């Protein structure tokens, strides 16, 4: 029986768009592939994979890949937030703001190598690698444990290198 309703809201791919990016598309896709495998392992979780917007520069491959307990959804974020018990985000962008505003139970992780986030962003956990992120995600969904402020690996990113 499916019990835990999890919503995953991904970041968009950038393709050849003119602009700066924090993730390289393929690197992000590889991470998502791992995350997808992780979701499939826990088949008692009812996972919703939020679809990318039409304006995304790259076609969303996950609309073809989602299967079993992982369902692809192109419904609005607001309607998905209403249904979800646990929301997982892997980047601090607008959906995170939506989660905060909507009072959702969310976990947001970013990787150490991702620059361009200011230090001490509230609600965001900096993790070393994919294993760390998945471990936190498991704790979050399985036991509703969110990392306390002491456990958050803040300031590990070398902010001093940033200009200004």
């Amino acid at each position: 029986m499916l019990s835990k309703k999890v919503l995953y809201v991904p970041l968009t791919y950038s393709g050849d768009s003119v602009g700066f990016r924090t993730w390289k598309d393929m690197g992000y896709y590889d991470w998502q592939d791992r995350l997808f495998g992780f979701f499939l392992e826990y088949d008692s979780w009812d996972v919703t994979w939020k679809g990318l917007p039409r304006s995304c520069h790259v076609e969303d491959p996950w609309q073809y890949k989602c299967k079993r307990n992982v369902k692809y959804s192109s419904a609005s974020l607001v309607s998905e937030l209403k249904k979800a018990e646990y929301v997982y985000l892997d980047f601090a962008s607008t959906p995170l703001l939506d989660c905060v505003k909507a009072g959702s139970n969310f976990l947001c992780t970013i990787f150490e190598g991702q620059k361009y986030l200011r230090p001490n962003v509230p609600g965001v956990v900096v993790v070393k690698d994919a294993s760390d992120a998945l471990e936190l995600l498991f704790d979050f969904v399985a036991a509703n444990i969110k990392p306390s402020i002491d456990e958050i690996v803040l300031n590990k990113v070398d902010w001093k290198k940033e200009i200004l």
Partner: protein
Amino acid sequence: MKLILVESYNEKIKDYISHDSDVVPLNPTASCELEKARIVHRSLSRHDHLEWDDNFHEWLETWLKLFEFHHFNRSNIAHDCYAIISGIIYNFVEKGLVYHKLMNNKKYDDFLYCGYEKQIIKVFEPALAFKGTGLLFNFFCEPEDGKEKFVFRADNELFDRLTPRFRDRAYIRPVLDYIRCLRFLPAYRKKKILFANCIPSEIRDAKLKGYHVDVLKNFGYMSKVDPGLKGGIHYSLYKNIEDKFGIPIHTCNFVLDDILTYFTYQYIPMVGTYEEYFDKMFRCKKYDCVVFRHRSDHYHFAAFRAAKTLKIPTVYLHHGWDAYNFPFVYKERRGVYEHEVCLTKDYKEFVISKGAKHNVI
């Protein structure tokens, strides 16, 4: 050993795969398509990329000053359009580095590239030109006269995907609540405010809250290059890229020249034309303040410049998640506004800590 790079999957690729070939998808869609076709592939590894971001902006800024000095001595339009030009060069350099890294890999003695136009192109030498919509495509294709060489934005075909509708645009906007930000500007209540980028529902909300607002018409994108334009003026930049990143001058010339020529001779003059238009419009309508969320199109730049000329106060409204720390943002893009409205106290402190000289609210 053969390296097959796949930007867009084509069934013909199967004919070229042998036991000694390495198939590498260049984007998530290609990866998914290869997976569906059950073709064994590997991703670009960390070693296929280079860590080069750190000094890029510093280098770019230095170069941009040179660019301005040479071409726009009496104007700073190029500087206002910093985000666009830096994005173009950033993407070029990034793709160029990946390309050269792959080409210089001694493991491979033959290369195949499967591009967006469903063609498979054998790479005999790094023959470079614009063709197709993928930037990397340009590094692989032979030049072909008489065809459009440059696509500034992905064309409609690329956008017309099966992907779902825009992510909740109508739902997200109220959550962001731009209009509420205006409460920080009480001095402008009952005065005439122009939104450079806004949607009708926001205008309605603002009007209901007692603001006298107007919105700038969307003048659309500029995406076509006049084929009659000739470049060849950016040698110093290409030399600089070669020295700094090792991408040969002739490569830069093939790939970048059209876009930079377009930028220099078409885009920037157009900003000037719109600026004159807005100058007249602002004088006539007598706005008290012009509010921006972003400046990404030629008419935004023009409106901004016209407002500055007429000394109309400009405001930047933060949107989305106030979490970013782009090094170039504070110096080049935010510092130019009279007021900057932050959504949170936390972020306001952060902006001030960055040495903001304007009014941070």
